[in-house]
């Protein structure tokens, strides 16, 4: 037998199944399986339960009508769905350029050894774990500084959500940028390109699939958030579509939040159906992110 084969055999013997079958490791394995099972089952039960609650309302009116107290059985979430779409658009508009710029600065230009940059670094890690509601407060403060009385508008809500997902975008963009091999940058610089040109023409385009994935995952988190929007003062229900940045707006999670505790059965049923709609939107965004990642993934 060759040396390689012998070694391989010894390794197999050392790590092989036989030794994994001690009672302790078996018990551990069972515990792991149970945890996984528990998580999935609870989630599934919740979704199925909600879907059954809302089953009577999977119709087109759910999407096209406004909330109606007079005709609760025909209530719809048009204002919330459109509001959420507007909010997502402006959130992306604010958070994406800012997040990419911050990430590029930190990765390509900043000197990581300076105090200031280390300070930024530590804060960034922590920001991602800050409760969503805090970003709502921050947005209110910024809006006040900008001189807005009424903060329950598209701009206010989008600002809160943009602040919320900024750390996510920065962190994923940095990872995507870091994955671009050093050789590409060196090749560009060795041709007489500046660091700026190299970043703009090589690093950034190569990182775009990763950035897109991160952005969409960030947005899919933002779309489900109600807490920061409550703080900003978004309406729980509106009877008109948003028309611009300054227009009052509501969001789908806000509407769900305000209707789930309603005393009328029909409105609660509509809220359950709306939860499924929201879930579908989130899943859609995540699916898009996975699609982009798989389609444009590059192995260097």
């Amino acid at each position, binding site marked *: 037998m060759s040396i390689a084969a012998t070694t391989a055999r010894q390794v197999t013997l050392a790590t092989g199944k036989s030794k994994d079958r001690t009672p302790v490791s078996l018990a551990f394995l069972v515990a792991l399986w149970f945890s996984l099972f528990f998580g999935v089952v609870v989630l599934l039960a919740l979704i199925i339960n909600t879907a059954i609650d809302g089953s009577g309302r999977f119709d087109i009116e759910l999407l096209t009508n406004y909330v109606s107290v007079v005709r609760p059985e025909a209530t719809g979430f048009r204002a919330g769905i459109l509001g959420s779409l507007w909010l997502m658009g402006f959130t992306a508009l604010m958070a994406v350029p800012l997040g990419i710029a911050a990430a590029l600065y930190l990765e390509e230009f900043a000197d990581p050894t300076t105090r200031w940059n280390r300070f930024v670094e530590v804060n960034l890690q922590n920001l991602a774990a800050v409760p969503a509601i805090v970003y709502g407060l921050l947005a209110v403060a910024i809006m006040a500084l900008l001189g807005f009385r009424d903060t329950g508008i598209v701009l206010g809500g989008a600002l809160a959500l943009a602040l919320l997902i900024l750390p996510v975008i920065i962190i994923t963009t940095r990872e995507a940028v870091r994955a671009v091999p050093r*050789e590409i940058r*060196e*090749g*560009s610089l060795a041709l*007489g*390109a500046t660091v700026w040109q190299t970043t703009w023409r090589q690093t950034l385009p190569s990182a775009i699939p990763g950035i897109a994935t991160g952005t969409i995952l960030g947005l899919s988190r933002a779309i489900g958030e109600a807490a920061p929007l409550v703080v900003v003062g978004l309406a729980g229900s509106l009877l008109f579509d948003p028309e611009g940045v300054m227009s009052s707006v509501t969001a789908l999670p806000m509407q769900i939040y305000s209707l789930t505790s309603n005393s009328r059965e029909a409105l609660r049923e509509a809220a359950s159906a709306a939860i499924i709609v929201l879930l579908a939107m989130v899943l859609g965004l995540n699916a898009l992110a996975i699609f982009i990642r798989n389609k444009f993934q590059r192995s260097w």
Partner: protein
Amino acid sequence: MASATSADTFPNMSSLGEAHIDGERRLPAQPTNPVMETRDLNVFYGDFHAVHDVNLAYGRHEITAMIGPSGCGKSTVLRCLNRMNDLIAGAHVEGGVLYHGQDIYEKNVDPIAVRTQIGMVFQKPNPFPKSIYDNIAYGPRVTGMKVDNMDDLVEEALRGAALWDEVKDKLKQSAYGLSGGQQQRLCIARTIATKPDVILMDEPCSALDPIATARVEDLMLELRNEYTIIVVTHNMQQAARVSDRTAFFTARPDETTGNRTGLLVEYDLTSTIFSNPNDKRTEDYISGRFG
């Protein structure tokens, strides 16, 4: 394009001394009017003294090879010649690097301008994730070179790198579809597209098979007519085959710290280095008695 048989790709070690036959090329013992020079070059990575007092002159339209055991500072010296070491945090250089008599490490010298004159080809082929055409056009575009007709320039560069015939029908395809050897020649084409004066190569064939290696070597000999080439190599046959002059480096451990600092042992015509070197260390290395 010259075709290479495996025989001339791998001459056996015993014939190494004669492998480089200077033929009609009559070179002076020292480069007259050198394109580049290093003067007492010392390089540090943080506190680590990587290279000690290197004095070398690189002749115009010559191929200079730098050989020596791993870690002796060949790449370090090479990267000083176009200020690529600037990109390494903590790297710092003492002494001078002269390009046509001008010290490129002086304060008023723009490293970007230096790199447009002194191009570099890396160990691992590193084409950009773009089309073949855009790989070539990238350098002229970013440096703002005045180009009358980019198509012509791309063709000229690809012909210069002996790659045109292989890629002329797929210029718009990704450079990642090329073989390793083709990618490396593409990187050479990319470098000559910006019309540099000097081309630095850091082990340009170490990732290539013998046939691709032979092609790049042929190419180097052709490019010598127009450019000055400085090449780092671990392959002594290669140094013997292509270079006009050879610099042998080694690393000497510091008595107190044990850090290995690189230094230049011997620099001479390649034919001399490979037939009767002056220094025992060179002879040991070349004859394979030293790793």
